[in-house]
């Protein structure tokens, strides 16, 4: 499963992005950040530093108060709701801390969702879904419901779902936050392997070990500002 991303142009570009709410200080304050294809960027910082807000802006789940967000040449902050949804289908895969799988759909049906929402034929989507499940080693659970799986297995299902439409970008918000040590290590390795295959990853985490293990670059936020931006040794 190889993703070819060998260009040096930025895939993600945030320029002086601010996200302010009606009360309190802004979640992000004039932040600028660029991510190149093939990078695995870990975003660290204490609670309230703006990590999840940053991810939401990149995913188009929210809009900045000021500044611009460009992903793969597309101005995300100016998209309508419908266009934003189509952007996520086509270019973004998301992995969440608490998996966000739908309990009344089977594992395979969960994985197929992004493709089916994009209008892909069921047969083609099913073939792709089975391929991903096999790649991630959970194809035997295709007909099971997420509630029967372990945390690590559920997160693998979430990763499979995120990769369904071959997104340019994988966003992960605390992917190991709800997992035990062994499952967390499992997911760490998975993300490392994906990045090694060329997948661009931006992950938000408190897990320093995760950041050290799979990130090619670490960015630290505090109070909405970048306070550190290192290139780290990934593996």
């Amino acid at each position, binding site marked *: 499963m190889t993703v070819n991303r060998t260009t040096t142009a930025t895939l993600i570009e945030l320029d002086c992005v601010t996200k302010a709410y009606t009360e309190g200080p802004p979640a992000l304050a004039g932040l600028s950040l660029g991510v190149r294809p093939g990078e695995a960027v870990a975003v660290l910082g204490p609670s309230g530093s703006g990590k999840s807000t940053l991810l939401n802006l990149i995913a188009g789940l929210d809009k900045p108060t000021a500044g611009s967000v460009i992903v793969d040449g597309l101005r995300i902050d100016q998209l309508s709701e419908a266009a934003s949804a189509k952007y996520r289908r086509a270019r973004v895969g998301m992995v969440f801390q608490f998996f966000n799988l*739908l309990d009344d759909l089977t594992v395979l049906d969960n994985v197929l969702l992004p493709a089916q929402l994009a209008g892909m034929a069921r047969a083609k989507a099913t073939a792709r879904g089975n391929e991903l499940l096999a790649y991630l080693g959970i194809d035997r659970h295709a007909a099971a419901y997420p509630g029967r799986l372990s945390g690590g297995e559920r997160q693998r299902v979430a990763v499979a779902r995120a990769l369904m439409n071959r997104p340019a970008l994988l966003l992960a918000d605390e992917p190991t936050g709800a997992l035990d040590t062994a499952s967390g290590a499992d997911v760490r390795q998975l993300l490392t392997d994906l990045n090694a295959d060329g997948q661009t990853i931006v992950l938000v985490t408190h897990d320093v070990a995760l950041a050290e293990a799979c990130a090619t670059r670490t960015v630290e936020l505090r109070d909405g500002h970048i306070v550190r931006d290192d290139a780290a040794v990934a593996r």
Partner: protein
Amino acid sequence: MSALGRVVRGGVTRRKVQTLVMALTALLAVTASVMAAGLLVASNAPFDHAFAEQRGPHLTALFDGSKVTPTQLDATTHGHGVTAAAGPYPVVTIHPETAGSIHSAGDKGIPGGVLPSGIMLGPLTIAGRASTGGAVDDLTMVHGRWATKPDEIVIASDSSLPPALGLHIKATDAPGSPTLTVVGIARSVAKTADAWVTPDEARALASAENPLEFQMLYRFSYAKTDAGISADRRVLAADVPPGALTGTQSYLATKKVADANTAAFVPFIAAFGVLGLVLAVLIIGIVVSGAVGAAIRRIGVLKALGFTPAQVVRAYVAQALLPALIGIALGVLFGNLLAIPVLHGAESTYGTASLAIPLWVNVSVPLLAAVLVAIAAVVPALRAGRLRAAEAITLGGAPKANTHGRRMQRLASRLPLPRAISLGLANPLARPARSAATGGAVLFGAIAMTFAFGLTSTLNNVQHGRDLDSSGQVVVRTESFGPNVPRKASGPQGGPTFISTPQSAPIKADPNAVAAAITAQPGTRAYYGTTDASLAVSGLSSSTDAIAYQGDSSWATHQMIEGHWLTGKGQVVLSSLALQSSGASIGDEITVSNGSRSAQLKVVGEVFDLHDSGIAVFTDTSAFSAIGLTAGADEFYVSLKSGTSVAGYLAGLKPALLSIGGEADPNPENKSDVIETMDALIATLTIMLVAVAGLGVLNAVVLETRDRTHDLGVLKSLGMTPRQTITSVITSVAGIGLLAGVVGVPLGVALHHYVVPIMGHTVATKLPSVDVAVYHAPMLVALVFAGLVIAVAGALLPAGWAAKIRTATALRTE
């Protein structure tokens, strides 16, 4: 503010949509219930109530002004059994025509405009009264004011005149042919006159051809039966000079007609009333218990903070009652306001005085609604209050997937449908109880729509049947009235029926000559003639109205209940009540008699006839000839060729009739006030019931999307567009709506087939099959989809809100 108060305030203000839905539901439910209950009560003996309110006369008596003096009439007010009296009022009967006027829009939708002059308006009995009030027959002004000057006239609301203020009528047979202007419209429950003028004006309108009479109005201590009234009449006749009493009218005859009209209303008002009340109860229960049920998690949190079960129950009952009470109060107000035009129509239809929603309805309905809201809130609140805090918090989260829901999702995911649709189709089974309640709301809405459609179609067919009674665009009369001729019932709902002594024959043109003139007139497509008489009919105890037909009436027959219309000589068709009363059957022979002469006629059909007493026989003119009656037609009904204008046709026919006698006029519309009022009532009640059903769906979808906020956030994060979100939400109720329509339509049809014959029975007639079998396949299919429409309409708003939920916020929802 106490902690409990803050919880209640927070619950009401934070859940704005739910609060609004609860208030609106209570408002609509109470409005519909107040209207329905109020109308049911108002339909209970309205004539009796109005008659008592107006101190109506048990007996209206006409006296020959040349044979009795006002002083002698005054003395009759102290006669045996008389408890109250009014009069003597001068009375004269004129035959006016229109005098070309610009008039304002009148009651019953008569548009304002210019009325051409010269249209004969039929005989008008006018009483001279100084005011509306009196010890007996205290009139109700409907529009305008009382006549205070010469040349002013107030017409009865049910007279044959167009009820329009400003209308000019010319009393062509009165001295000086004065023109009178309509300044008011009044209602006499007992129908004592067609119109009123000042006493001096009444005297001025009298002439040798239309002599002055005196009207006295009496109330008696014993007047509950026909025998009692007859006895009172005999005493009265004995108290005045012989021959002075020329005519009397008993209130019991008027009451009978009014009660028949009323009785026809009751079955369908009862049906709608029951539907409305059941739907109101259902929806209040669904909305309130759903709201509290959705707050179980919050209740768990409150208990974890230290609220006792009793405090929790009080909080949630208060949270439900606060918006509901506002809705209930407004519902009482709107119910009374909306009832005004409907009751106004009912007043006109019943011929009664002011109807209003009784106070006890305005008190009991809101009280019951409040109790219902409290019960609907207490039950789930008690259940939640008894749970342990942790259990409530767990139970109150998003619904856990159940076996049926999962099975349905698996099946749906394999359907060749867009994913947003297949996701929506499977949702109802995730919350079967809520889905069933939603389906119940739509079911009642579908039943109401189906029933309303059928009832309206039936009434329209009945109206069409009434139109067949005097068909064609033009009516040509061969008879013109002279003085003191026998007068039969007049007015659209059967007005005064006077027993009087004929003193000279009517002036009559040769019917054959009139028929020839009609035949020769270009534009004539078809016509038939009628004449009527009172005959003795075997099996019937009193003389019976008989109508004889001349010519081809096949294009305008009455609606047949059984058998067929007249096709030749020696045949007779009976109205439903006549057939029942005579004991005859189709195929039997009956005898009609005029004095010593009689004829045998074969019964070939049973017709639908709602006029007057409902007892009538129809035959052809040869039968009249056989028993010595004049067989020539009194009236001809003419149907015009397509493209022929009525005015142009009359302009050609009238000169041809001048030399041979006869009068031709446009055939007035025969619209029934009863049917028009029923149509308006059906529409109003149906709209309300459908709105309540739609609110039930809206509430259910709001709760559903709230439960699924997190899932919706996940789907939106995966790329579900706003349009797909709306599609998914609407699809989740579309299946329920369609199913409710499939079940509701047959139930609505069954309700119609149950109620309509009862309505016919109350007016002592069977209904022709064409008036009952009003549902046809294409319309039934459309009505099934009405359930779908109700469901989708209710889901549109919350679907839009779901599409607008911020994804990031939704993902944080548990």
